[in-house]
């Protein structure tokens, strides 16, 4: 079952994420992806995550596709203008890649090439519209295509955005533009997320809550302080601080969050950020 079918069914959907390496050594990420076989409904392949130059998302998605896994191609607007984005979408289509996650992207100066020219010719909303136009058989300015691509388009939302109203307005725009599902920023504050889900329920679009396993109390504090829209309750920070076995506690926390989220949203998106090999243990602990 592909991601689209999974989301159309009643099941609790799980997606996870791998980040291509800096270089051509793909053995490790392919092994990590293999651990997810049969356990998740889709695997995001990030697009130069954190604006760090790496192997491209499209090539890795192709490798996953060849192995019969279900890749989700992340596409940001940071590095490519409208010509290159459309060309890469067509390239993805001929490689059989169906799922595309459209994002604006981190700013260039935050990565390892701060000298790079930030492109942002399109934004996430206009990128989604462009994808829909390609599907309708023309490029974004209306020239006919020979052969139409078909995609399943997702987008992101930050439930802790400041202010959340602005995030919801943009979420609605993404839906009108053609987004069929959402992956959300990391959630630790269940109460706040529940409120968010109540507000977006009328939009009737699947939302996968973000799960980032906490690696340490320090990481939890850092994210809470520095990552926009992320709030880690003190209780969880203390749990990590007191943990005898950090990995075990981290997995427990992630699994508990997933269990609590189960009644609230259509699934979870697990972003392991280096702890890819621990995703199966999180799923085991969450009975998924």
């Amino acid at each position: 079952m592909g991601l689209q079918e999974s989301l159309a069914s009643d099941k609790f959907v799980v997606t996870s994420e791998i980040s291509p390496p800096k270089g051509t050594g793909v053995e490790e990420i392919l092994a990590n992806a293999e651990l997810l076989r049969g356990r998740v409904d889709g695997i995001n392949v990030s697009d130069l995550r954190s604006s760090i130059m790496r192997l491209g998302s499209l090539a890795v998605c192709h490798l996953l596709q060849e192995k019969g896994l279900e890749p989700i191609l992340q596409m940001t607007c940071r590095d490519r203008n409208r010509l290159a984005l459309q060309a890469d979408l067509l390239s993805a289509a001929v490689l059989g890649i169906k799922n595309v996650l459209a994002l604006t992207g981190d700013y260039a100066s935050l990565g390892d090439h701060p000298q790079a020219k930030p492109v942002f010719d399109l934004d996430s909303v206009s990128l989604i519209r462009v994808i829909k136009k390609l599907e309708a058989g023309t490029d974004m300015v209306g020239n006919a295509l020979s052969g139409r691509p078909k995609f399943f388009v997702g987008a992101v939302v930050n439930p802790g955005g400041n202010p959340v109203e602005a995030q919801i307005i943009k979420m609605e725009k993404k839906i009108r533009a053609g987004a069929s599902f959402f992956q959300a920023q990391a959630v630790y504050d269940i109460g706040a997320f529940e409120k968010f889900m109540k507000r977006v329920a009328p939009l009737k679009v699947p939302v996968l809550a973000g799960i980032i396993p906490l690696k340490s109390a320090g990481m939890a504090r850092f994210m809470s302080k520095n990552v926009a829209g992320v709030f880690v309750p003190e209780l969880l920070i203390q749990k990590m601080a007191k943990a005898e076995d950090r990995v075990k506690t981290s997995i427990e926390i992630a699994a508990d969050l997933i269990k609590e989220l189960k009644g609230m949203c259509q699934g979870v998106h697990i972003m392991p950020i280096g702890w890819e090999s621990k995703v199966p243990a999180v799923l085991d602990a969450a009975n998924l």
Partner: protein
Amino acid sequence: MFLAQQKPLEEILKSLVGKKNIFILGCNGCAEAGGTAGEPQVLEMRRALERAGKEITGFSVVGFLCQKTLVQSSLQGKAQEVAAADSILAMSCGVGVQTVAAVSDKITHPACNTISLGKICGEWNVFERCRVCGDCVLDLTGGICPLTACPKFLLNGTCGGTTKEGKCEVDPEISCGWLLIYERLKKLGQLEKLQQINEPEDHSKMLPPKGLLLSGRCPVERGK
């Protein structure tokens, strides 16, 4: 107004390697107002270059370094000093540097980096407010320009990177432009404007009309 910023002295000296005798040009236009090329800065540059072993053959602070006639007459008035120089150092924006280069047979070195058109659209200082994009959407954004207020030039609302303090994750010193737009529209009771999906910018409009690209409009050019 063009806003420029003086290059680090090491960079200027690197550009002047092998050039012993220098003539310095300041500008009493935007560059003077911006604090990069008035007489005090020119004199300071002269001292700095002399300390670095350069010979300053002379200097002049021109009313507007972007005004060809003014630059020409100023250089003629200092013909000997200019002739004795290997190079000219222009402490203005890029337009000034190009003007000097166009009327002089010396290599012109820029002492500044031009960083903004600044308040070319008016007299409201401090922040850049117009990027001369040719595709204005200010009516949709509560009168706050998303191109200058948002580093990602977003046209369809905030990214997820607004900090708890309402700042931009790219630079904690600046407010999130889209938060400012949101607050302005909310105050005006026009939040529905945020729901409109805006087309990507038409960058072809950024190119000035051909007539403006040709410099034949200027009497000085025509008299050549």
